[in-house]
């Protein structure tokens, strides 16, 4: 058997529902396998750890060919909200937690949560904007140090 993965550092760079969940599932899955995990939220990924925004993450209904949904329809007012609500409902049926609860769960499992300093500066945010589970606001260099000895997964 090849060497097992012992540590992963996962980057969450997108702010849509389908852009955030994969990183969270990878992190939770890693922790459940006993793999050390850190998550680095950057750009719109910061919304997932932002107190005012983490409950309002939406599904992208325009420019999202994987959704197989007509662009003209997807751009109608309220369409994103409706589709997001539908996805949330389907996920609840599978016991997939909503994003705020999911993030709390991965923090409880021992994963380290970090915000990207460049993005924080870009959006004019500070530590108070984030949920308490966020350990620190770090630079990309600090992220690389943190990720040393493990695999990096970009989402």
């Amino acid at each position, binding site marked *: 058997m090849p060497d097992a993965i012992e540590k992963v550092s996962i980057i969450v760079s997108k702010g849509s529902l389908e852009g955030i969940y994969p990183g969270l*599932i990878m992190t939770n899955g890693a*922790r*459940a396998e006993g793999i050390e995990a850190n998550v680095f939220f950057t750009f719109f990924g910061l919304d997932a750890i932002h107190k005012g925004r983490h409950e309002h993450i939406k599904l992208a209904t325009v420019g999202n060919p994987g959704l197989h949904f007509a662009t003209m329809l997807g751009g109608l007012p309220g369409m994103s909200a409706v589709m997001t609500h539908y996805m949330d409902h389907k996920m609840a049926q599978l*016991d997939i937690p909503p994003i705020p609860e999911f993030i709390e769960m991965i923090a409880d499992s021992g994963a380290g949560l970090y915000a990207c300093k460049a993005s924080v500066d870009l959006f004019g945010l500070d530590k108070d904007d984030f949920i308490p589970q966020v350990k620190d606001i770090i630079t990309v260099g600090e992220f690389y140090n943190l990720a040393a000895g493990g695999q990096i997964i970009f989402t």
Partner: protein
Amino acid sequence: MTTKTLAGAQVALDDEGFFTDPDQWSEAMASEIARGEGIAGLTERHWQVIKFMRHEYDEKGAAPNVRALAKASGVPIKELYHLFPKGPAKLAAKIAGVPKPRGCI
């Protein structure tokens, strides 16, 4: 597939060390399996989780994943990871002699 002697009995294990036949398990084996996984002593809280895993397997034919385990057993996620550092659902299933839970959450 390998066979191992636990608590004086022969048991069949898969490549990852999980029981291929959960009926071969007995409570006496738990401590030995736990020690092999780096857990020196099983406390009452450990046992609460192990018994719960066993119960779920008996009732539903499959062991729960970490989230389901936390919700239904009454032991919160933080504590589960303290009791079983290298993956609570995986470890508790191994110690309880049930197959590894399969799931992505």
